[in-house]
């Protein structure tokens, strides 16, 4: 379990709310097939990861049912440790998944989010939509985080452009 109560009293508290939607069409596969890639460790190993040369998976567990948890901890070559902790709220097989998830960066929580994934048949393939509603926490003014998290404009743009 990760510690959700930050004990560092020097952290400047802040919350920024944001939302985004991403839509994709996956041709030639059914909504059930796409859903299945979300529903097991085997499926998620195929895509819910980072490039191998950049990190190692330190921990991956998944209990895919309403109320169940998923955890993914990664050790990055840069020395950074990221942790993803999700709790499943809603599962409609082949159609919809909703979970909340927290992201920790080097033990500090950086966000709590609600993530909704929708799968619909469309033209012989699957129309897929993800919506994230997030609360991004603390650290915006923290110099350490700024250096570590590459919050500079140049780094930001290059990360975006490479992404």
């Amino acid at each position, binding site marked *: 379990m990760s510690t959700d109560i930050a004990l560092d009293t020097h952290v400047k508290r802040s919350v*920024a709310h*944001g939302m*985004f939607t*991403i839509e*994709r069409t*996956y041709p*030639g*596969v059914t909504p059930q*097939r*796409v859903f*299945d*890639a979300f529903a*097991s460790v*085997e*499926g998620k190993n*195929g*895509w*819910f*990861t980072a490039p191998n040369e950049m990190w190692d998976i330190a921990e991956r567990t998944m209990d895919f049912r309403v109320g169940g948890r998923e955890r993914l901890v990664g050790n990055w070559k840069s020395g950074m440790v990221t942790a993803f902790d999700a709790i499943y709220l809603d599962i409609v097989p082949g159609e919809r998944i909703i979970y909340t998830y927290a992201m920790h960066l080097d033990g500090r929580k*950086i*966000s709590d989010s609600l993530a909704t994934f929708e799968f619909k048949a469309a033209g012989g393939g699957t129309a*897929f939509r*993800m919506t*994230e509603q*997030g609360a*991004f926490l603390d650290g*915006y*003014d923290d110099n350490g985080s*700024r250096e570590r998290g590459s*919050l500079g*404009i*140049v780094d*930001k*743009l*290059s*990360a*975006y*452009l490479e*992404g």
Partner: protein
Amino acid sequence: MGLDATFQALADPTRRAMVERLTLGPASVSELARPFEMSLPAVVQHLAVLEASGLVASEKLGRVRTCRIEPAALSLAEHWFNQRRAEWEDRFDRLGDYLKKYPDGDPR
């Protein structure tokens, strides 16, 4: 300025290339236009989108309009949102490749 405007501004490859060029330093409009096979008005139109998003600022000195990145326009919060979104875009690209490779089910 909203996140959508920032994201829309960066969604176009020409505008991304312009922003990338400007991260190296300020440039005149004609310098910015040089690598692209498009008319000057088309380049100016892209610049207008970038300026409207707040990513790029320009000023006219004499007959030359000089453009530069406007770092203040991107709040750190926006940075986080855009980064989070980019991470998911990456994952969904990988998901697409994975589904192409294994259309009938996950490998055992």
